[in-house]
């Protein structure tokens, strides 16, 4: 389990407010954190990384406790082994790609893990270049590889693709998803982009430090919250099947969720149990939507 509850004063241009976030997800989940700028997303990420200390709260990752203010537990960033990928990449300008990757490895630089990661990320040909000579997309791949090579299980990304063009963004998003799966990571992605909400197993939306919406799957974020939806509550999404049609891959199931129609991809196995008019629950796991008849 990745269990987080943090409280921290936030100084915003509009005055002081309080960041108060609580969520629990499975390890291996992909969490997307969204919200306006100044909502506290980056602060939350830095708290998870151990760079900012909150006033109160707890952070538990698996068996480890990184923060428990009541018991006076605070594990420093250096001991957490989290991977943090910055919006500005934060590559060390005086080191080559290869040296950047080797930077965080303890002890004497051992070439094998670096070689392996260079190969996996397709950065072999760039390994002796300096960051300033790389494109934005290449720099971000180096930044991601630099965190992965240390074997971090928690990957935090602060709007990592926001400075890139659409095509590069798409390619990197796929690489991120691949890395997330291959390395069995728990990933927290700060994002403004609806395209990235779709990656989420669990999504949180913040506004001025407060959780506006949170819950499993990204689908709730495509519909406005109902007036009676308690803020911050996890709400499973229910809907009605409108139609099923064979698609290019598998079947396309159209489901009405609240006032919206959502198209989902499903396998033949799932479709066999469904017919129009069925009430279903929709969630996602491993980036594919999960439809269950209720």
């Amino acid at each position, binding site marked *: 389990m990745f269990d987080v509850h943090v409280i921290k004063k936030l100084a915003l241009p509009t005055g002081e407010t309080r960041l108060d976030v609580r969520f629990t997800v499975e390890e291996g989940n992909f969490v997307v954190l969204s919200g306006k700028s100044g909502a506290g997303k980056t602060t939350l990420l830095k708290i998870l990384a151990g760079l900012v200390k909150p006033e109160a709260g707890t952070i538990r990752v698996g068996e480890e406790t990184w923060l428990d203010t009541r018991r006076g537990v605070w594990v*420093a*960033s*250096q001991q957490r082994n989290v991977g943090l990928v910055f919006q500005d990449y*934060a590559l060390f300008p005086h080191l080559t790609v290869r040296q950047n990757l080797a930077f965080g490895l303890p002890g004497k630089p051992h070439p094998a893990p670096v070689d392996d990661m260079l190969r996996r990320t397709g950065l072999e040909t760039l390994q002796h270049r300096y960051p300033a*000579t790389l494109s934005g997309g290449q720099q971000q791949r180096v930044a991601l590889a630099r965190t992965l090579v*240390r074997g971090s299980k928690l990957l935090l990304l602060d709007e990592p693709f926001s400075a890139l063009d659409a095509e590069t963004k798409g390619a990197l998003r796929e690489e991120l998803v691949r890395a997330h799966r291959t390395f069995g990571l728990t990933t927290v992605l700060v994002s403004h982009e609806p395209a990235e909400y779709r990656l989420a197993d669990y999504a949180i939306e913040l506004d001025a430090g407060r959780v506006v919406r949170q819950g499993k799957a990204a689908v709730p974020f495509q519909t406005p919250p109902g007036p009676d939806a308690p803020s911050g509550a996890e709400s499973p999404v229910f809907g009605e099947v409108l139609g099923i049609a064979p698609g290019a891959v598998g079947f396309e199931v159209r489901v009405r969720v609240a006032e919206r129609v959502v198209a989902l991809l499903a396998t033949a196995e799932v479709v066999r149990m469904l017919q129009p008019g069925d009430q279903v629950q929709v969630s996602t796991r491993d980036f594919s939507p999960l439809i269950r008849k209720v």
Partner: protein
Amino acid sequence: MIDWQPLLLTFRLSLLTTLLLLVIGIPIAYGLAYGRFRWKPVAEAILGLPLVLPPSVLGFYLLVLLSPTGPLGRLLDSALDVRLVFSFGGLVLASVIYSLPFMVQPIQSGFQALPLSLREAAYTLGQSPWQTAIRVLLPNIKASLLTGAVLTFAHTIGEFGLVLMIGGNIPGETKVASIAIYDEVESLNYPAAHAYSLVLLVVSFGILLAVYWVNGRVGSRPGKPPTTPGIGNGP
């Protein structure tokens, strides 16, 4: 033929002051750049004083403080048998204080110009603040370090009022080149004053030329961070 001793003394003093200030100045600059403490403006004002204070004022206070009848001087004299006024050691101490802002301020702005994310990235990659400073910060503010060292060196070469107050004019001990020039002019020995002045002029120009040359090359190297202040755009 001129006496080379004042020139050699000047360069010895400048070199020693620069080396000492590199050791002292980097931690102070780091503290001022990243530290958050209440009395920071006071600390910055005290450290910046030598920039605006007449050297004779600083020299006068140091003379009072360090003279064998002064508070610190008496203590040093009785406890360690050290007498700093009118000695080379006293000149080094005075020069270190006098040139402190010339070392600290370029390095401080170098540190401040580095993006916060570089430090944070190093921390999350398992590096302590100390390792981060050695492995990430200092290599990326080379231009600022060079600027601080050169300004300190050049500034110490140019000292006059302070040296005269605290060191006097003892050949081989405190008679540095700037004092020697004054001495020669006083005794109307213009050829010797010319010779000392020319050496200082050529050396100063040579140092600055070398700095601009090196900074220009550092600036064009691919690994250079975008915003490290060099000598031209430093404080």
